[in-house]
């Protein structure tokens, strides 16, 4: 894996280069936002609502001012002037309900953790202490927690001025009419699945430091963000500070997973306070504060129905979602389920598809992007019901998929949902995965253990996924009513000494862009890897960008680096031809050297050309004195990685404990720039997907309090909770970019959750269990086994779980009645 042994002349792309980023990270020489100290820095602390929903009748911050070290304190009303609503950039329908979202509440709080007042003090302890002195009177209002009853006419309202908790209804219907397909179907199956709320848990808590130059109205904002460029635009809009007076810097950022793809109230508040006081201000969230204040992910009820023939050919698919928006619409809240809308048909061919999503306001922390954002939910539902359908038809779940998936010779293929998948080879990835997994042997063992009634059951779960990522085509985003484009910028500066700066608009927070972009530039330019430096994350030095999310950085931003480098070579070629007194057509460019065909001694390196451009003493007439280049790339299609994931679990039916015995995945992410980094992305993705399947849930009580409110109550898995993964790849190059690359950042998360839950259900199916609700904790598994035993063979066991889950209605809260209700299988 280490790169020392690799031939120096080998291409950089495809090579397991060790990361440039690591040196500072393993020695502690990092620059996290909370590390930043500037002269006169003040610390800001936020007082938050302890209630899910209440009218604020009085706030008195004056007692806080008496506390030692306190410089200022503000209630929401004190900051309201000059602070606009936080932005929602994705109003998915024309008639969407768009409530105001003040960065700090003034009249009403709508979720536990909504900010109501702030203190500014000389150090973080003094600021936290003084919060206790602030007096707030609340007039409680009813919480809104149940997604279905929230839509009733007489439901209490999250935003009373809007007259409804329905945020939007977004429909899609393609192909034949689903009703008519259902009528000719031999088999239909309806299921209800629950996507529990998740808390993203990037290891670095959020933080922001605002440094003002009050006299000239200039502000530098350091933030633990994935989106410095978007944040700059949005903070200008929210605060009224002109965009060109704002500089936003994302220094070292410790993970994001979507949670830092946001424009947060605290960023706007810190800016407003720094403007008011003319002093630098820092805010850093505590982890428990972040659980309330940083957006959550998932949170949906999924009703899904498939229609098929007895032979297992899919005819149609119908999906009805209810998606929990939480209390407000944040940057892309409403769009998250819509990113999944196109993915329910997944890799399968069918004749009809009908989809509806209803967004609902609740008095909980807002939801927004979390690793996968809409696609994990879609993949979960389709892959779960495919396994259920296979069981219904008595087919092997892999065989059922084979009968329906797009064959490799059918690409490019336009799916029923209207996406055109550019490339893929589901057969190859699946065959490889089955072999690595030892599928047939495991099935045989499973059969044997079931026969002898082993109390520890073996289950095998299948997930053959694809996803749409690499956001991407600006015109498609327009059609989806997204408020911005999907391009990415890159520029390359050829420095006089032959060194190279690559400026990218992507904003890494763990992905390794510094390494991978260096590999791309080094390959195209033919310069040493170590001669390339990557500049990012600062709107002054990297002025144009759309930032990092949605597995877009390589497919869009890396492609931009590639194209900018090609432009540099083209410009350098003109200069080289002039200096070598040859025509451009007679020049060869190999490993960074321009040589005249047939006269190899007549040569100039591109690094020499950079110096020639710097002196400009001998350039051809009419050529500008620079071989630098920049480009902005707007791909014409999304990126469609795919893969086959197989999970084997062993479940102790007496304790409910699930153990992952083996996990094999074969992903196809097209050509690979750095296989070591790709493997790492897959590992991390798997961990998060498995965490949803087995461990994590944001649990609320009936009053809207977040019960899993600290890291001690929310189970982020440790090394001891996860297995070793077996990962492999097939390579079907993308047709939508020059490098043939596809996104990888979210793949593991999208694929793994259904693989694990399918395995859990597969283990318990002989006992009469047909579903276990996530997370499949020992208690839920045990309960499912017990209920199935009571109900007798063949009865619906349904999902089970503690009597609090928050989103799914009376069934969940009255205790373990099961999530299918009466709908069951058809």
């Amino acid at each position, binding site marked *: 894996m280490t790169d020392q042994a690799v031939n120096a002349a080998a291409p950089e792309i495809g090579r397991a280069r060790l990361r440039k980023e690591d040196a500072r990270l393993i020695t502690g020489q990092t620059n996290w936002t909370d590390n930043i100290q500037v002269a006169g820095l003040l610390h800001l602390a936020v007082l938050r609502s302890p209630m899910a929903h209440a009218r604020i009748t009085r706030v008195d911050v004056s007692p806080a001012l008496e506390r030692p070290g306190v410089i200022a304190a503000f209630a929401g009303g004190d900051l309201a002037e000059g602070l606009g609503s936080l932005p929602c950039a994705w109003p998915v329908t024309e008639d969407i309900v768009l409530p105001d979202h003040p960065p700090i509440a003034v009249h009403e709080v709508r979720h536990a953790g909504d900010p109501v007042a702030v203190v500014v003090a000389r150090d973080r302890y003094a600021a936290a202490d003084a919060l206790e002195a602030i007096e707030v009177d609340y007039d409680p209002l009813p919480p809104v927690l149940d997604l279905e009853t929230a839509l009733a006419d007489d439901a209490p309202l999250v935003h009373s001025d809007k007259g409804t908790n329905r945020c939007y209804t977004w429909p899609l219907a393609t192909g034949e009419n689903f009703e008519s397909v259902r009528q000719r179907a031999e088999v239909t199956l309806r299921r209800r699945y629950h996507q529990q709320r998740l808390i993203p848990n990037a290891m670095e808590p959020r933080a922001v430091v605002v440094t003002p130059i009050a006299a000239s109205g200039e502000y530098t904002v350091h933030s633990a963000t994935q989106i410095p460029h978007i944040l700059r635009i949005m903070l200008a809009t929210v605060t009224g500070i002109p965009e060109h007076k704002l500089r936003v810097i994302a220094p070292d950022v410790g993970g994001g997973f979507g949670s830092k793809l946001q424009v947060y109230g605290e960023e706007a508040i810190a800016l407003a306070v720094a403007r008011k006081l003319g002093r630098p201000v820092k805010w850093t969230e505590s982890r428990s504060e972040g659980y309330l204040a940083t957006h959550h992910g998932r949170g949906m009820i999924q009703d899904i129905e498939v229609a098929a023939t007895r032979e297992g050919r899919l005819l149609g698919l119908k999906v009805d979602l209810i998606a929990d928006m939480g209390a407000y619409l944040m940057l892309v809240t409403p769009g998250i389920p819509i990113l999944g809308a196109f993915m329910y048909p997944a890799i399968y061919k069918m004749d009809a598809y009908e989809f509806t999503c209803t967004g609902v306001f609740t008095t909980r922390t807002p939801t927004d992007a979390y690793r996968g954002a809409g696609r994990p939910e879609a993949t979960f539902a389709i892959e779960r019901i495919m396994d259920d359908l296979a069981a219904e038809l008595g087919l092997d779940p892999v065989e059922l998929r084979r009968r329906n998936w797009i064959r490799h010779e059918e690409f490019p293929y336009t799916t029923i949902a209207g996406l055109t998948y550019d490339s893929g080879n589901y057969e190859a990835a699946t065959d490889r995965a089955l072999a690595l997994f030892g599928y047939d042997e495991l099935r045989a063992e499973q059969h044997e253990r079931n026969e002898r009634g082993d109390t520890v059951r073996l289950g095998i779960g299948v997930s053959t996924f694809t996803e749409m990522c690499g956001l991407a085509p600006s015109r498609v985003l327009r059609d989806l009513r997204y408020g911005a484009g999907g391009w990415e910028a890159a520029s390359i500066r050829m420095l006089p000494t032959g060194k190279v700066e690559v400026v990218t608009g992507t904003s890494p927070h763990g992905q390794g862009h510094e390494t991978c972009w260096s590999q791309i530039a080094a390959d195209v330019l033919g310069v040493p890897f170590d001669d390339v430096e990557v500049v990012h994350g600062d709107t002054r030095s990297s002025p144009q960008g759309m930032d990092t999310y949605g597995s877009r950085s390589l497919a869009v931003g890396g492609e931009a680096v590639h194209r900018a480098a090609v432009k540099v070579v083209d410009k350098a070629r003109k200069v080289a031809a002039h200096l070598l007194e040859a025509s451009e057509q007679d020049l060869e460019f190999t490993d960074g050297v321009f040589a005249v065909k047939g006269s190899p001694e007549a040569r100039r390196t591109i690094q020499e050309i950079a110096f020639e451009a710097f002196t400009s003493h001998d350039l051809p007439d009419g050529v500008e004195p620079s071989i630098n280049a920049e480009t902005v790339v707007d791909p014409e299609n999304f990126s469609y990685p795919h893969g086959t994931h197989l999970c084997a679990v062993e479940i102790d039916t007496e304790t409910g404990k699930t153990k992952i015995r083996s996990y094999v995945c074969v992903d196809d992410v097209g050509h690979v720039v750095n296989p070591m980094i790709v493997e790492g992305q897959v*590992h991390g993705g*798997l961990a998060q997907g498995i965490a949803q399947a087995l461990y994590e849930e944001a649990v609320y009580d009936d009053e809207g309090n977040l019960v899993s409110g600290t890291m001690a109550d929310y189970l982020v898995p440790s090394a001891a909770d996860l297995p070793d993964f077996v990962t492999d790849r097939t390579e079907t190059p993308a047709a939508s970019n020059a490098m043939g690359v596809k996104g990888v950042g979210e793949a593991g998360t999208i694929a793994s959750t259904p693989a694990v839950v399918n395995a859990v259900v597969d283990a318990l199916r002989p006992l009469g269990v047909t579903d276990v609700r996530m997370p499949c904790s020992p208690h839920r598994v045990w309960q499912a086994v017990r209920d199935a035993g009571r109900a007798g063979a063949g009865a619906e066991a349904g999902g089970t779980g503690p009597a609090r889950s928050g989103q799914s209605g009376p069934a969940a809260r009255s205790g373990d009645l099961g999530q299918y209700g009466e709908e069951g299988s058809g």
Partner: protein
Amino acid sequence: MTHIKVTVDGTLYDDEVEPRLLLAHYLRDRLGLTGTPIGCDTSNCGACTVELDGASAKSCSVLAVQADGCTVTTVQGLSANGEWTALQRAFHERHGLQCGYCTPGMIMAARDLLRENPQPSAQEVRQALEGNLCRCTGYQNIVRAVLAASGQQVPEEATA
């Protein structure tokens, strides 16, 4: 205010601190040793792990006054002479980090493990690092890095 004397990464500091000041904040805010990050407020994540008188400790769970008279080593003290330790090299070579926020704590906790158990099994590594959370790597390469740093043979590739 309480008077403390504490040696951190080879330097003796003589300071007045509030009795409630956490060692993690003392290191970060007072000494500027920001190589030790803080990831939670419930001592679950382990990002702030340091060595305190020869044993690993979560510096968010220790008061600065409790470190009076003690010797503290942070990740910044490991390569003081410019040469990385075997663990640091292994984390780099085995891609045992992505965002790197958990890395200082992981390295300090792994150091403690290898001191007590110089040739741990993979499962022993997983158990020993249970108190250190990582959200990026899925832990597999961290486990490999620790095994490699212990001088044991580790498979080069994940594929079977």
